[in-house]
């Protein structure tokens, strides 16, 4: 019977969901427990979660998971009995075993169960217990009382004391730390299920009911019309009414279904206490993490895709931003550095900031670096403001770290952040003050699903330009276009802007007009002028992906369905800009 049930995919899926959710909260709870070791409630909750996982895993026959959760449970029980408090050694060992449990559960969900070597983890957990049960005299409570200190500087055992637990601490800390770091980063997992408030679903169901009513109304009108009961103006006005009601329902339905996709950003933020704790240990820094606005709601896909950029930024702040405790003291700052994560909604945007009170970014050093890396020429550098220079930290291949650490400094961090943000139609900017700290500001659309666009006609095709990137639309004469060193620019009023013809970039039949219609697109601080044949107007549009095998078409962000049922492409302004730039330096050949 056990075997039959153990093979039931539904049961296994439920178990995986439950376990993943439980494990997600475990880290958080455990870290709060470390902060306030007396929080009995917290301890009970952790114990219950582990116990549930153990129980179900046993029932389903995942024996290795049982072994590990059993060992963890023993340690937790020992804490519950009040025989010890959660020291950083205990917490480290527990975190390491939770990480392993996560890996195992993930493997179960992928149906790729392997044999794990659990001896080290189980031994580590058992060691905690045996160290405690062996009579150690006064040295037992010694290191435990020193727990808060030990958690900040775990590698330094209390001087003069040779306590057994502290020995275990010195021996075991370096071990779990490197092991714990990768899973913490990998914990950035895709959420494949989501919980939706019942009230949000009720709203949807109501609206769908309304939709059905409106459909019936239209069918009824159709019948009356074809039977001749309703004609002329009467029919027109009845149809108009029905359509306006239908579009009201459709709008509401759109809003309501988008709301079901919104989840609090806490889903990402809650990983950070763990990330910061592990990293601070590894770097030997003292860090206090503050989180604000975790209840801010964002589209699920946005939240998921924010995880990577945020991890990069937080790691960056810890590694490059914050100074070592001694250095901070020497500068008259508090020993403990502060990293703050903050989220807030501003209009139809979400603004997330990652700030630290560290050393700030030295524009002069950045300047030297970009010169060394050949990213700019000496002459060009002189003309750049410090703000312009700072922009280079987002350039591919840039890193100011003197040595490559495994935390950051491979020069992949910040340009990845910018790319990720661009993919989300967002932006990232930096503000820094030497000696006082750095603030990274991320701006994101509330939802990815609906955006206002400007529809334009080019050759025979209709394209949609995201309105947020449209700075203005103007009419210009062909004589305003000038050729400068093989690249076209256009003079509009007092400004000279890089100029491109959409039909040429997209390889369509070109049509030359004397009077041109030009859209000026703003991408960050850059502007380009794009010539189109006609402006068709504005529209709210639902973004769809081009399908998994056409994910990265240069210059195209996605697609939408027009009123005629045809697919319309949505232009990606940033992609367009890089297409134009590539064309200028001649590495990109447009097939024509």
């Amino acid at each position, binding site marked *: 019977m056990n075997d039959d049930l153990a093979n039931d995919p539904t049961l296994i899926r439920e178990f995986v969901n439950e376990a993943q959710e439980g494990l997600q909260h475990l880290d958080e709870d455990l870290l709060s427990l470390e902060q306030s070791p007396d929080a009995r409630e917290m301890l009970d909750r952790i114990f219950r979660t582990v116990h549930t996982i153990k129980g179900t895993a046993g029932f389903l026959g995942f024996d290795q998971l049982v072994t590990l959760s059993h060992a963890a449970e023993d340690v937790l029980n020992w804490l519950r009995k009040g025989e010890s408090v959660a020291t950083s050694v205990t917490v480290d060992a527990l975190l390491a075993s939770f990480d392993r449990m996560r890996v195992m559960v993930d493997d179960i969900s992928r149906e790729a169960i392997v044999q794990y070597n659990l001896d080290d983890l189980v031994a580590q957990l058992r060691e905690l217990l045996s160290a405690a049960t062996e009579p150690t005299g006064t040295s037992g409570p010694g290191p435990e009382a020193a727990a808060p200190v030990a958690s900040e500087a775990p590698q330094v055992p209390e001087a003069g004391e040779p306590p057994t637990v502290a020995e275990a601490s010195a021996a075991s800390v370096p071990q779990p730390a490197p092991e714990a770091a990768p899973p913490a980063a990998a914990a950035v997992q895709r959420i494949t299920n989501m919980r939706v408030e019942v009230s949000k679903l009720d709203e949807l169901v109501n609206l769908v009911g309304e939709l059905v009513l409106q459909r019936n109304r239209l069918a009824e009108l159709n019948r009356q019309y074809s039977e001749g009961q309703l004609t002329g103006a009467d029919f027109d006005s009845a149809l108009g009414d029905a359509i306006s009601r239908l579009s009201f329902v459709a709008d509401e339905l759109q809003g309501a279904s988008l709301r079901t996709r919104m989840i609090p950003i806490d889903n990402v933020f809650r990983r950070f206490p763990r990330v910061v704790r592990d990293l601070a240990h590894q770097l030997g820094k003292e860090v206090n993490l503050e989180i604000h606005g975790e209840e801010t709601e964002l589209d699920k896909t946005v939240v998921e895709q924010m995880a990577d950029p945020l991890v990069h930024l937080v790691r960056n702040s810890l590694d490059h931003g914050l100074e070592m405790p001694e250095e901070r003291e020497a500068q008259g700052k508090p020993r403990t550095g502060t990293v703050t994560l903050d989220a807030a909604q501003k209009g139809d945007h979400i603004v997330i900031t990652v700030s630290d009170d560290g050393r700030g970014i030295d524009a002069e050093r950045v300047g030297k670096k970009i010169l060394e890396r050949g990213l700019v020429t000496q002459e060009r550098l002189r003309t750049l403001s410090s703000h312009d220079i700072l922009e280079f930290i987002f350039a591919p291949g840039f890193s100011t770290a003197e040595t490559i650490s495994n935390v950051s400094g491979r020069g992949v961090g910040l340009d990845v952040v910018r790319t990720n943000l661009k993919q989300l139609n967002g932006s990232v900017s930096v503000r820094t003050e030497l000696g006082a700290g750095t603030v990274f500001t991320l701006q994101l659309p509330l939802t990815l699903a609906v955006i206002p666009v400007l529809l334009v006609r080019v050759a025979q095709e209709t394209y949609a330009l995201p309105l947020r990137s449209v700075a203005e639309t103007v009419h210009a004469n062909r004589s305003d276009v000038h050729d400068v060193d093989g690249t076209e620019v256009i003079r509009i009023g007092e400004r000279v802007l890089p100029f491109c013809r959409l039909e040429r970039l997209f390889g369509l039949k070109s049509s030359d007009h004397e009077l041109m219609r030009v859209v000026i697109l703003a991408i960050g601080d850059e502007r380009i002028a794009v010539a189109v044949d006609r402006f068709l107007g504005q529209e709210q549009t639902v973004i769809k992906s*081009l399908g998994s095998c056409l994910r990265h078409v240069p210059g195209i962000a996605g697609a939408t369905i027009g009123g005629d049922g045809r697919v319309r*492409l949505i232009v990606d302004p940033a992609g367009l800009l890089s297409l134009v730039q590539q064309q200028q330096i001649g590495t990109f050949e447009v097939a024509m």
Partner: protein
Amino acid sequence: MMNVATKTNNANRAALEASAQIDLLQIVSFRLGAEEFGLEILKVQEIIRAQDLTRVPNLPDFVEGVINLRGKVIPVIGLRRWFGLEQRPHDKYTRIIVVEARGTVLGFIVDSVSEVLRIPSNTVEPPPRIGKVERDYIAGVGRLDDRLLLLLNLDRLMTSSEILQCEVTEVAEA
């Protein structure tokens, strides 16, 4: 009465068992030029009439565009272009075969779709060298009376169209 019923049941079962032993492949057959091709029916999601395509810029030319399939945008590949056959305009027989493989939904434009055939799997032979159509994409040749069906290797097709897509992106980003 009882006996008769049982007998019929047994006869049915015997027939079923016999047919189960020789695996029958269910194949959707379609035409491209003079040749007749086949696709395993399990891979085919649906077959639709040709409709207005939206061209997507800067892609290899065998990607003829994208269409709206009940609110989902799917890419459509011209099999004639893909196989290097000469182009011809769409007509009333032109169809789009919508397939799903490796988690991707794709459409293939073909000249016409003929019928659903059952062919015993043991009559399928390994692919010979065939003129213009690349041998790689043919899983085998099915025989039904005097007709020859080139069975497409969908997984291969999909993989190579993905690879092409990647190359395109790399060139563009270089």
